[in-house]
């Protein structure tokens, strides 16, 4: 138990002091209690800001801690969502449907990632190839799903729906409890907190420390006796599964999914959330994802086009002036230099 505690509070993420953990617990308690003051609609909205956290955390793990940039995490988001829709849609009336559907969704994510990862990591390709091929994969998935309109495109009783997407996806269900509204909020909150803490344990573990070494210098790490290909593959699959978790939460929230969820614009979002927060810290990414999702939602009420331009500008600005991410840079510099930390920050290390 004390070993687990040590892993939890390890140095590979922001925040180690008692004050930090006290604040963390306080925020968690607040988040649990907060819905009593909210309507069901507002609670579900807040859940929406949270459900994108897993995919961002997975990308942070992959990119920030292991040095592998994937532009196509949303492909696994979509795969999980569609597979869940197909499986649980065919099992309507069966209370185990959603659970089976969720497991299938995550399993297919893991399998797809494993196959793709095998070709990429065991081929020892150059670093820039991974972002390109993952992007291509998700674009092709979008094109494929987009042309599945028509009755012949169905699995069992569930239609894929082409560009209009799949509708009528069942909510998650545990026994007789259908998870919507308030219960959905708690469901997402628990998953996010547990997910974050598990990844925190992972990065502080021995396995996590070797990930850092692989990020820094793969050849040196291999020459210490590690099979880096296998480890990169494992981290890639973990990131895909976390992306899939977000996908599941999304369809269980909105009961629909369209091919645009795996398209170019959507694919850019996790990269933006992670870059803005700071890819080398899980906590920074958790915070930035919630904040940016809230921002996106608020801005799109004004007009979707402008929201994306603003986000594009934000990305470019952050890459120029806060290459390590806003939250990570502040967390590193404020303790050292106070407000003067905000000057001369573009000398960080993106890449």
């Amino acid at each position, binding site marked *: 138990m004390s070993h687990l505690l040590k892993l939890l509070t390890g140095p590979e993420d922001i925040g180690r002091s008692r004050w930090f953990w006290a604040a963390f617990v306080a925020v968690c308690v607040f988040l649990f209690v907060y819905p009593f003051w909210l309507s069901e609609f507002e609670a579900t909205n807040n859940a929406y800001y949270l459900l994108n956290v897993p995919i961002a955390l997975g990308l942070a793990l992959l990119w920030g801690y292991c040095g592998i940039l994937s532009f196509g995490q949303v492909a696994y988001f979509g795969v999980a969502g569609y597979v869940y829709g197909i499986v649980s849609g065919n099992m309507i009336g069966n209370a185990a449907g959603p659970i089976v559907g969720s497991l299938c969704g995550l399993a297919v994510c893991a399998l797809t990632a494993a196959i*793709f990862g095998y070709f990429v990591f065991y081929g020892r390709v150059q670093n820039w190839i991974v972002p390109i*091929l993952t992007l291509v994969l998700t*674009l092709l998935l979008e094109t494929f799903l987009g042309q599945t309109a028509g009755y012949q495109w169905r699995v069992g009783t569930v239609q894929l729906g082409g560009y209009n997407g799949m509708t009528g996806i069942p909510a998650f269900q545990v026994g007789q409890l259908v998870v919507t509204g308030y219960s959905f909020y708690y469901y997402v909150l628990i998953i996010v907190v547990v997910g974050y803490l598990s990844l925190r344990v992972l990065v502080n573990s021995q396995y996590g420390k070797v990930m850092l070494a692989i990020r820094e210098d793969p050849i040196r790490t291999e020459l210490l006796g590690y099979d880096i290909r296998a480890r990169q593959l494992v981290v890639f699959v973990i990131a895909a599964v976390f992306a899939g978790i977000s996908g599941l939460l999304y369809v269980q929230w909105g009961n629909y999914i369209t091919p645009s969820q795996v398209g170019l614009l959507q694919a850019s979002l996790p990269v933006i959330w992670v870059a803005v927060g700071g890819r080398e810290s899980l906590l920074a990414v958790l915070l930035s994802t919630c904040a940016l999702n809230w921002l996106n939602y608020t801005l799109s009420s004004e007009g979707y*086009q402008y929201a*994306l331009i603003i986000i*594009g*500008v934000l990305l470019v600005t952050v890459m120029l002036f806060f290459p390590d991410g806003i939250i990570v840079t502040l967390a590193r510099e404020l303790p050292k230099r106070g407000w003067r930390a905000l000057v001369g920050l573009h000398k960080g290390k993106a*890449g």
Partner: protein
Amino acid sequence: MDSFATIVSILYQFATNGAFLLLSALGLIVILGMMNIINLAHGELMMMGAYTASIAWHRGVPFWLCAILAFLVVALFGALLERTIVRRFYGRELGALVVTWGISLILSQGALTVFGPFLPAIPIPGGSIALGQYSFSVYWLTVIALACVLIAGLWALYNYTTFGLQARAAMQNPAMARALGVDTGRVYMLTFSLGAGLAGFSGALFAPTVSIAPFMGQQFVAPAFITVVVGGATNVIIGALGSSLLLSLIKTPIGFVFGAFVGTVALLLAALVIIRLMPDGVSAVLQRLIDRRNRFA
């Protein structure tokens, strides 16, 4: 007589696919080979070229001039991008990827906001030539010829001009090149500009064949990236040529039987297999063959 026409038709298919891949990827490869940067705004630069062509054409400018104009406008824009943003990311490949993606978001969304969802189309210039039961588009034949001319022109540029020499020096060893008096900053800017201009030119060439919309660049992104990945960065010209030919060899029969989309999927699968066998791309393999031949010459 009929089988001759069939053979010509097959060659035509093969050449059109190859030209499509080559032109889609050319701007990207030029930049990659020089600066190890993948420009994710590539699709949007092509879109910009198409937009320039459409606007110019609908003001009465002859099409061939529209294409040249597209090259110039986008090349200028590329120089601007390089000066202000891209040059801060040399040596930081992944950072460059992310920032060019941000730029692509701004450009595509910006185009939507400023110009609306569509620009008026350009009809395909030229008619068609009939041979047996097949008809071949004069326009595509011209595009194929243009692709050959472009690649030959780039070859000449890199191997027979001072700029080309300086560019190759900067590619191989920037510090040494600088020590010898090469202004690498200028070389990088001109190269990025050239790559952007080529993207704009390709976009203008493809404009009559697609609908001209803010996200039109997307359809070229997947094929372009696959071509670049298979080509590799060792030798820009050879990689581009070898890769488009190889991939066209794969796409043409599969696309013919199963349709264009399956053809593109086959390209991705082929790319995965090819990089497993040749991690540094076709250009690395071809470069080694050339070196070996030179040694024993």
